[in-house]
């Protein structure tokens, strides 16, 4: 279980989010651009600090308000799909996945097949389209076999056909493997497909 008690202060608004997500479940975060969805995911991933937030994963305190102690990002086993993909430009698609990879050969082959990136594995990540980058970014996070998967606008660059295929794959992946997932999106319908536990962020 992932317990979140996040308080974020922006110049124009505040975010106050208190919730818990069970293994196999998904939390949807809905809100317009610039509201703080990405910041929230980065705090959960441990790559951005927050002295006012409490995050507990399976009784391990990741973030604490009282003493400010923080489990390092590398020790959280979180797979983060960045809104701007954050692929490593010096690596090929395959090398990007291999950099993160903790899954078996069979799972790797299945992942590559499902994401339809078999034909671009040897291409540099700078030489592929936006949709292909999006799929590679999703694949890289999943190749890490994370306990918690965080996705920031993961379907924004996908065509409709592949989008529904990947959404179905992700949904069964999360429930079948008991992953905790948090998806941030400005598309409410995308979030509804995964969960009815949707938090709407808005300026207060």
């Amino acid at each position, binding site marked *: 279980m992932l317990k979140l008690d996040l308080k974020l202060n922006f110049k124009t608004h505040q975010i106050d989010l208190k919730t818990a997500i069970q293994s196999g479940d998904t939390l949807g975060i809905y809100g317009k651009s610039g509201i703080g969805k990405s910041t929230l995911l980065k705090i959960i991933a441990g*790559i951005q600090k927050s002295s006012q937030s409490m995050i507990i994963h399976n009784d391990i305190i990741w973030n604490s308000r009282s003493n400010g102690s923080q489990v390092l990002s590398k020790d959280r086993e979180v797979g983060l799909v960045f809104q*701007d993909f954050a692929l*490593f*430009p010096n690596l090929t698609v395959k090398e990007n996945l291999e*950099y993160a990879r903790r899954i078996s050969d069979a799972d790797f082959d299945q992942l590559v097949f499902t994401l339809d990136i078999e034909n671009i594995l040897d291409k540099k990540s700078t030489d592929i389209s936006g949709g292909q980058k999006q799929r590679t970014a999703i694949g890289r996070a999943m190749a*890490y076999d994370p306990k918690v998967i965080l996705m920031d606008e993961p379907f924004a660059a996908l065509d409709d056909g592949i989008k529904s295929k990947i959404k179905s794959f992700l949904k069964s992946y999360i429930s079948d493997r008991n992953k905790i997932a948090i998806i941030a999106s400005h598309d409410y319908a995308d979030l509804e497909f995964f969960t009815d536990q949707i938090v709407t962020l808005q300026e207060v």
Partner: protein
Amino acid sequence: MEDFLTPLWLSCKLAFITTFSLFIIAVPIVYGLSMKKFFAQSIVKVIIALPLILPPSVLGFYLLIALQPNSYLGSFWNMVFDARLAFSFEGILIGSIIFSLPFMVNPILSAIENLPHHLSEASYSLGKTKWQTFHKVLLPNIRPSIISAAILTFAHTIGEFGVILMIGGNIPGETRVASIAIFHELESMNYDMANQYAAVLLVFSFVVLLLVQFIHKNPTRPIIC
């Protein structure tokens, strides 16, 4: 002809060893400055950058003091190698490494600091350590800057004069590098020979700067993905 080539060969040898040594030294320095936060970080950056604005005579003076036979370093060197450090090739090599340090460190550090933050963030979130992130993600993505830094360091070493003259003097085959040879030939009123050395260094400097321009206009890989 051999006499003419010896200072040029010495310059190249000095520049090559300096550049190679500085690359080895610069990587951990850049790692420390870019990946760690520590007290007096700004002071360290200032010390590294000092040779950029310090008169070579000032640096040369202090190095001469540090390398002389009765100094700690000089006596240690003498004890281990049974040789003097001041007025030797090894002495000008030490001076050259210190004098050219900012030419190697600063471009690499600047390039690392200008990389998009999401690259290191992505690497950390995938369970990688700071060192793994540094050498597997950050360094490979600033390859053009590393090459430029190495070329500039090499070129700067070839052109060094003040520091080398102060700590190395003008010993043929030992410390008389090309820039010192120009000075020596001028003092000997041998203008033709001085002109030949100067022309070689002029053409060399022009080609080096052209090469750096080319690398920056045609980076081997785009930085932003």
